[in-house]
C-alpha cells in the first residue's frame, strides 16, 4: 500500500515541476493566444544560462538563477519585440512555424555550444535532504521546494494579473486588442513585457529542472509536451488549473512508473488523452474562451 501512496505523493511533487513548466506557456497563451513551440527548449536554454553563470561566478544554483533572471527577461522581451510580434495576426501558421524553427535553432545551438553531454545543477548538501513522513515515505527537500515554488509563482502571477494595473492591461489586451489601444495600451510593448515575464517563470522552472535530474540540449521538446498537457488538462485561463493539470500529469507518470518503469511517460500521455476525450475543455476552465 505504501508504494502506491509513495508514488502518489511523488507524483504530486513532480506535478509542481510540470506546473512550473506550464505556467509560462499558460501566461503567454492567455494574453496573446501564442503557443510557443520552443517553450521546452527555452527552459533548457535557461538551465544552461544558470549553469554557465554558476560556473563563471562560482555561485550556487539559486544565486545563479537570481542573476539569470534579468538576463532572461531581456532575452524574452527582445525575442517578442524583434521576432514574435511580427508573427501575430489572424493566420495560424506563422507563429507556429517560426517558434518551431526557433526550437530547432535553440536545440542545435546548445548542442554546438555545450555538446550533448548530460549536465546537472549541483546544489550541494540539500540534494539528498529529505523529510520523513512516516510509514516509510520520505519527501525530497528539492521536490518539495519545487512544489512550493510552483505555488509561489502562481500566487505571484495571480497577484500581478488581478491586482495591478499591468495585470489589468494584460487582461484587457487579451479581451479586445483594439479597445485596449483606446486605453493607451501599446499592445506590442505589453506582449514583450508578458514574454519577459514568462521567461522569468521559465528560468525558475529551469532551476528546478536542472537540480532534479540531468539535462542536455535535446530534452526540450518533451518538456514542452508535459507543459502543454498540464495546461490542457487543467483548463485554459486559470493558473491554479494549470497547477492541478501539472499534478495530474505528474501523478499519472509516477503511478504508471510504479506499474512498469517503462510506462512512465506513456501513462502521462494517456492520462492527457483520456481527459481530452472526456473533458475537452479541461478540468477547471475559465468561463470565457
Amino acid at each position, binding site marked *: 500500500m505504501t508504494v502506491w501512496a509513495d508514488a502518489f505523493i511523488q507524483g504530486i511533487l513532480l506535478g509542481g515541476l510540470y506546473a512550473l513548466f506550464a505556467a509560462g506557456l499558460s501566461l503567454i497563451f492567455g494574453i496573446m493566444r501564442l503557443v510557443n513551440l520552443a517553450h521546452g527548449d527555452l527552459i533548457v536554454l535557461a538551465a544552461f544560462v544558470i549553469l554557465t553563470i554558476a560556473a563563471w561566478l562560482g555561485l550556487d544554483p539559486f544565486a545563479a538563477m537570481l542573476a539569470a533572471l534579468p538576463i532572461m527577461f531581456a532575452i524574452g522581451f527582445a525575442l517578442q519585440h524583434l521576432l514574435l510580434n511580427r508573427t501575430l495576426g489572424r493566420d495560424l501558421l506563422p507563429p507556429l512555424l517560426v517558434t518551431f524553427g526557433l526550437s*530547432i535553432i535553440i536545440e542545435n545551438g546548445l548542442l*554546438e555550444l555545450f555538446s550533448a553531454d548530460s549536465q546537472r545543477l549541483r546544489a550541494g548538501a540539500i540534494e539528498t535532504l529529505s523529510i520523513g513522513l512516516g510509514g516509510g515515505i520520505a519527501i525530497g527537500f528539492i521536490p518539495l521546494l519545487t512544489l512550493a515554488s510552483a505555488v509561489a509563482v502562481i500566487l505571484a502571477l495571480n497577484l500581478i494579473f488581478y491586482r495591478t494595473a499591468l495585470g489589468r492591461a494584460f487582461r484587457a489586451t487579451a479581451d479586445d486588442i483594439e479597445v485596449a489601444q483606446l486605453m493607451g495600451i501599446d499592445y506590442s510593448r505589453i506582449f514583450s513585457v508578458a514574454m519577459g515575464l514568462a521567461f522569468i517563470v521559465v528560468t525558475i522552472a529551469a532551476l528546478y529542472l536542472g537540480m532534479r535530474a540531468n539535462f542536455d540540449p535535446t530534452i526540450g521538446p518533451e518538456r514542452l509536451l508535459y507543459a502543454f498537457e498540464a495546461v490542457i488538462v487543467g483548463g485554459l485561463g486559470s493558473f491554479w488549473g494549470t497547477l492541478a493539470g501539472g499534478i495530474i500529469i505528474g501523478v499519472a507518470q509516477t503511478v504508471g512508473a510504479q506499474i512498469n518503469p517503462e510506462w512512465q511517460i506513456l501513462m502521462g500521455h494517456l492520462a492527457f488523452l483520456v481527459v481530452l476525450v472526456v473533458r475537452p475543455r479541461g478540468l477547471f476552465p475559465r468561463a470565457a474562451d
Partner: protein
Amino acid sequence: MNRSASVPSSPPQLYRIELRTRGSRAFTAAAGALIVVLAALPGFAGRDVIEELIFVYYMLALAQCWNLLAGYAGLVSIGQQAFVGLGGYLLFALTIIAGLDPLVAIVLAGAITAGFALPTALIVFRLRGAYFAIGTWVVAEVYRLVFAQFKQLGGGTGTSLGPEITNTVFGIAWVRSLFDVRAPAARDIVSYWVALALAVGTLALIYFVLRSRYGLGLGAMRDSEDAAETVGVDNFRLKLGVYVVAAAATGMIGALIYLQKARISPDAAFSVLDWTAYVIFIVVIGGIGTIEGPIVGTLVFYLMQNYLAGFGAWYLILLGALAIAVMLFAPQGLWGFVSERYGLVLFPIRRRLVVSDKN
C-alpha cells in the same frame, strides 16, 4: 388576355468551366514524358542515383500529404511521423509475422493506417489551432512509446528485415533477369518504382481532389469556416476525410521507406526531425498551399541535404533560420513568389468561367 409586350430575349449563351491554361497543357505533356523517363531510369542509372531518387520521391510524397493537410485543410499537424512509423512497423509486422509479400504489405499498411487515423482524428480534433498541432505530436509520441513495447518487433532497439523477405519481394526475379543485377540492387529498383508510383500517385491524388468539389469545399473552408458551412460544406467531415486520406498515403510511404531501409526502430520511425521538421521545411520553403511548391521545396532540400548535412548542428540551425526567414518575409515560399510574379501555374485548379455567345 393580353400578355405584356414580350421581353427581348438574349441570345442563348454557353457557359463552360475551364481549368486548363495554355501553360498547363504544355506542362502536362512534358510531365508525362518526364515520368516515362524516370520510370525507365533504372535501365541506365547507377545504384546510388536510384537510391538518391528514392529519397527525393518519398520526401516529395510526404510533403504533398502535409501540404494537403496544412496548406489546404488548415490542419497543421506536427505528428505525421505517427503514420510514417505506423506504416513502417506494419510493413515489418505483415511481412515478418503474417508472411505477406512486401508490396502487398505496403498497400495493406496504408489501409490499416487509415483505420488507426480515424479514432486518432476523433481525439485530436477536439483541439484547435496550435493546440491541435501539439496534440498530434503527443499522439505520435504515444505511438512511439507503444511500439517500443512490442518485443516481437524489436522493442526499443528495433529490428531488421531478413534477406528471406528482402530478396523475395514481388518483381525482384523479373528485375534481376531484365537488368542483370543482384538481389539487393533489384530490390532497390523495385523500391524505386514503388516510390515513383507513390510520388506521382500522391501528386495525382491531391491534384484531382483539389479539382473536385471537395477542392472547392477546402478552398471555401480555408477562407472562412463559418461561411463555408452556410453554403453546405460539412467542415468536420471534410477535415476528417482529408486527415484519413493523408494518413493512409503517409502510412504507405512509411511502409516503403522502411522496406528500403530494411531496419526499423521506434526512435527512427517516429522521428519528429526526419518526418515532420524536414517535411515542413520542404513545404514552407517551396510554397505552402500550392501543388508546385513541395516539388520545388524537395529539390531545394535535397541539394541542401547533399551539400550541407555534413555540418551537423549548424546545418539544422541554418534550416531553422531559413524557415523563419521565409515565414516572415516570403510566406508564399519560392514557388509562390515566382508564381505571383510571372503568373505561372503548372497544376491548374482555379476554375474560370468561359462564356461564348452562340448566335
